[in-house]
């Protein structure tokens, strides 16, 4: 079974038709990159999977969005939004640590879900920070404010925070675009390691990044899915001329 799927999804922001009949599927333990020019619908599509678009006024969604075969927009899936967001973590473009200690940032998701046993929380915080390749850098200052960390460290802290509640899917919306090249490289290596355990979808404007980290790439343009294929194919011999024009920098 595919981990995630959309079937003929249409999304309108009022009169604006933002997503036009998107049908895609995502295999477990893969990284899929969503690329395309600004305003093409990549982030809108990404936000389908944790229902963040619900927060936007006048949004209308048709079609199916399936997680493990169940439509997350239907009551029959038996999944509340908070339960959905435990399974589907998200990392945003700008690092957004909470105004708390490093430890409490990672522990927050556990505490909100009623997990407060000290030993368990400590173990989960350490595991998450290790998975996010941050433990060695922060293990001696867990009580310090998260704001004392560099931008790259803050972003890895946000990834650890997402991992703490053990999602199966991680959504990343341009996770490295606000970071310096070294931090970007660390995030990319992290993504490459995380895919052994998680299904990851990443929106990126950086095509070289898509090439480096993803197994499959989807090219969006004006709300449509133009092409979706293995990343080596998209970057060496795309089928559609629009895709070729985009990846070669001739437009967008």
């Amino acid at each position, binding site marked *: 079974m595919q981990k995630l799927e959309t079937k003929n999804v249409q999304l309108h922001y009022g009169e604006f038709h933002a997503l036009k009949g998107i049908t895609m599927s995502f295999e477990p333990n893969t990284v899929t990159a969503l690329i395309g020019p600004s305003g093409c619908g990549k982030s809108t599509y990404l936000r389908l999977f944790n229902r963040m678009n619900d927060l936007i006024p006048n949004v209308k969604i048709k079609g199916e969005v399936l997680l493990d075969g169940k439509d997350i927009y239907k009551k029959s899936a038996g999944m509340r939004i908070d339960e959905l967001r435990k399974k589907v973590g998200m990392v945003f473009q700008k690092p957004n640590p909470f105004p708390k200690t490093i430890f409490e940032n990672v522990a927050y998701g556990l505490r909100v879900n009623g997990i407060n046993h000290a030993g368990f929380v400590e173990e989960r915080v350490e595991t998450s920070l290790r998975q996010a390749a941050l433990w060695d850098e922060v293990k001696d200052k867990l009580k310090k404010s998260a704001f004392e960390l560099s931008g790259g460290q803050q972003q890895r802290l946000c990834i650890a925070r997402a991992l703490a509640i053990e999602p199966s899917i991680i959504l990343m919306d341009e996770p490295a675009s606000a970071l310096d090249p070294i931090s970007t490289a660390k995030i*990319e*290596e992290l993504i490459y390691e995380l895919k052994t355990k998680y299904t990851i979808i990443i929106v990126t404007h950086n095509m*070289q990044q898509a*090439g*480096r*980290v993803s197994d499959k790439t989807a090219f969006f343009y004006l709300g449509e899915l133009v092409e979706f294929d293995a990343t*080596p194919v998209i970057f060496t011999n795309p089928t559609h001329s629009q895709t070729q024009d985009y990846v070669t920098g001739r437009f967008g």
Partner: protein
Amino acid sequence: MTHLDTELKRLKDEILEMFNLVCSQLEKGKESLLTLDKSLAREVNFNEKRVNALELKIDKDCENIFALFNPLAIDLRFVLAVLKINSNLERIGDIADGIARYVAETETIFDKELLQVTELEKMYNMAIEMMKDAQQAFDQENTKLARGVFKKDDMLDDINGKANSVLASFIQKHPEKTMQALHIVSTIRKLERTGDQAKNIVEETIFYIEAKVLKHLSTAAKQE
């Protein structure tokens, strides 16, 4: 290891596999030629498909690395070198296949005197030695060993240069063995080209390690 490092290591393992395959083809080709072992010759012909298939795979892997990782500096030189070495090895594979093809089709074992005067076995051994040196130099990033290959190629060129006059004398003495002599000269030319390909391989190896371009330089200049 980064993702790129993993891909580069995989590419290196593949090109070393290609080296092993092609060297094996040359050795079997030599054995089949000297003993007229047709079964061994047919084995070389059959394995030529493997050589070609591996060449295509390596080409594709290089293309993917360029497209997906934009390698720079030594990584870029490495992938460029592998792309060219791959092509050189495939040509050597063709040469081994061509020699074996003759063996598979002929009924006459080579005259011992003919083999001796042309120094064919010595030339063949030298060509195989050059290939092994080239492989080791690439694998161990040993540019000193790589540079040693240039002098060995001069020895091959020397034998090739003498071949015409040697064979002309032989044919005068043994006109009934003219066809054999012509096949020998064809084999000598093939081995000379093998030496050239081995030289190209070490030039690419030195390029990737030292960023020096040795193409079109004299043997002496290449040693510097």
